[in-house]
């Protein structure tokens, strides 16, 4: 009776409270929820944990006040255009499986109410998780998933800061050309190995394409079933086909298995160069067997002197996390800073506004701690200004060996035989 008699009054009251809450939502809101989706368990957890650390560290800087740090968002606590609202990370575990990644992305969006997601490290997981994000029109930014196909899907809400394996493949071809020219390496044939996962297959295709463009012959293109128990036949095939340079997009398990098998079968590639992954995360366990291995990277600790901002931020990271940046954590840091910059420019947690702001991103090189020319996305959501370097394991430490003009150590070619290591 009361409700029927007072419907108009109630409606006015409800509408007023809605309007007031909307108007004050930003000032009342203390946090901006952002999903952080990575692999926290399973064989790829080491890389996932580095990603999470880089991300959380970026959030710490954004939420804190560091006026002596030459990063815009570090000057004040929180996001200045959102009345100092702090970023609240909601960390989720994809378990390294595409279906779990998709499920967690959905949970982050629908239950946790995140306005954007940073993830998911493994290209296979990023692929499915970003499909969910696209369906829910939620911006999804990836830091480390380098499979080129991810930005070929025509998605509006998907952005990638890291150079892709297509970029790195091009970088590697130029590297070979330089090696042939400067060091008389005479490299003509290429081999490629990986597991038959999203990353491995995508990178393989990029290597083959780049090799063709630069006039190299791909004599080995070997993929094995993920989780394989042995690589004897693969290494035997490589021994037979004997490429001048062997590229690999392999993770922890496979690099350990490949190394022990190559050692056992006395297979000595003249150059063994990777696309990150296990080349970073298995350093300790390879214990000297990886001497002279090379990998593409986006940064190197031996560049600290060349980038003062990197030096300072790396020191802070080391104090908080007891280790220095690596390729995973630094890219994750950069992606989160990029996302935060977009949210700040959007001035709200409205997903479409964030998406628009991401599309308009133009972060100059001096705001970054990586050796890129900046962050600016093309119409496919790919950062056009990223680039890679080549590092080689020398005396137990990765050192920058290419481009030669920024190299901090002399490249060793060919790789020492197993008996010499």
């Amino acid at each position, binding site marked *: 009776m009361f409700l029927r008699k007072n419907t108009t009054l109630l409606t006015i009251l409800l509408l007023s409270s809605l309007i007031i809450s909307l108007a004050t939502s930003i000032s009342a809101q203390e946090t901006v929820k952002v999903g952080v989706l990575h692999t926290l*368990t*399973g*064989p*790829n*957890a*080491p890389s996932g944990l580095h990603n999470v650390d880089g991300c959380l560290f970026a959030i710490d800087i954004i939420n804190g006040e560091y006026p002596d740090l030459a990063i815009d968002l570090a000057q004040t606590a929180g996001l200045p255009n959102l009345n100092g609202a702090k970023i609240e990370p909601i960390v989720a575990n994809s378990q390294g499986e595409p279906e779990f990644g998709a499920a967690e992305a959905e949970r982050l969006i629908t239950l946790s109410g995140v306005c954007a997601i940073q993830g998911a490290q493994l290209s296979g997981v990023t692929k499915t998780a970003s499909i969910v994000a696209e369906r829910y029109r939620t911006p999804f930014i990836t830091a480390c998933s380098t499979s080129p196909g991810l930005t070929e899907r025509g998605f509006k809400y998907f952005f990638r800061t890291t150079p892709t394996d297509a970029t790195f493949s091009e970088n590697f071809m130029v590297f070979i050309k330089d090696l042939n020219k400067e060091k008389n390496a005479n490299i003509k044939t290429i081999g490629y190995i990986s597991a*038959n996962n999203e990353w491995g297959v995508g990178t393989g295709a990029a290597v083959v394409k780049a090799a063709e463009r630069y006039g190299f012959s791909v004599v080995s293109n*070997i*993929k*094995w*079933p993920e*989780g*394989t*128990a*042995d*690589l*004897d*036949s*693969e290494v*035997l*095939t490589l*021994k*037979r086909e004997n490429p001048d340079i062997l590229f690999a997009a392999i993770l*922890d*398990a496979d690099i*350990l*298995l490949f190394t*022990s098998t190559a*050692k*056992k*079968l*006395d297979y000595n590639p003249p150059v063994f160069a990777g696309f990150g992954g296990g080349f970073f995360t*298995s350093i300790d*366990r390879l*214990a000297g067997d990886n001497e002279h291995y090379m990998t593409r990277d986006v940064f190197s600790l031996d560049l600290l002197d060349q980038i003062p901002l990197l030096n300072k931020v790396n020191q802070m990271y080391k104090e908080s996390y007891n280790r220095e940046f690596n390729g995973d954590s630094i890219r994750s840091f950069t992606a989160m800073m990029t996302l935060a910059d977009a949210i700040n420019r959007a001035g709200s947690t409205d997903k479409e506004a964030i998406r628009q702001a991401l599309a308009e991103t133009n972060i100059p090189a001096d705001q970054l701690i990586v050796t890129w020319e900046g962050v600016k996305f093309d119409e496919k959501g790919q950062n056009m200004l990223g680039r890679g370097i080549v590092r080689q394991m020398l005396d137990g430490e990765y050192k920058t060996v290419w481009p030669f003009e920024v190299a901090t150590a002399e490249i060793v070619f060919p790789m020492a035989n197993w008996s010499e290591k």
Partner: protein
Amino acid sequence: MNLAVIFQAIINGISIGFVYSIVALGLTLIWGTMRIINFAHGDFLMMGMYATFWIFMLIKIDPLLSCLLIVMPVSFGAGLLYYRVILKHILKREVITQILATFGVGIILQSIAMFFWKPDYRIIRGNILSGTFRFVGISIGIPQFVTSIICIIAMLALFYFLNRTKTGLAIRATTLNKEAAALVGINIENIYYLVVGIGISLVGLAGNLLTNYYYVFPNVGMSFALFAYVIIVLGGLGSVKGALAGGLILGIVTSLTGAFLNPAFKYIAVFLVYLMVVVIKPEGLGGR
């Protein structure tokens, strides 16, 4: 075609085949006697590997020494416990219950490993069995070679036990007809305890040997277990000789296919062989 490459591929296949056989042996023994497929088998392998790893890291006992003195006896004990706590209660239950129960044990073991030791890959260094020896262009890893020898010894020992000892004959009798075995005074319950103990100790042995040259992590058992299931069907459920043959066939087929066709097809070849055997001889190579 280079003969050295062919021989290398065959030797590689044989060495990994022996490991698969030992893993499958325990599985087929349990199935043959109790008609239960142990879906936690791979996870017991994983536990055997972790046990070997931590014994090496913490008390500096090499895997070669800890194998007979520690890992196998402890695995045997774990098998007895496994039977007592789980298998005994699902013996007469429906197949689906048995599958879920053993699968559940596997999940528990994996979760324990993940909780205590995280997903990191562990590998031992400085163990006795390391290095490679080469002759006439063929490389044989010393860990793999010794592993193969130990597997052969273990299989011969098991074969002798099952065929030449009273207890072994009692196990075989139970496998053939447990009611008749009970009628002649064989204690079936004790047989079951023994079989599970032996089965798990064999997989513990496999884990110990693998740790010499393979990395340890919580999901490591899955790959080997999958092949073990294929092998016991290929070789004949309950057949010890079949498990050996199946393991070697699987190892050699994958190795030769990978070396001469395409590594991407190596497991396709295995399953093609498996399907052929199932069609031509459904009871398996060693089955009756």
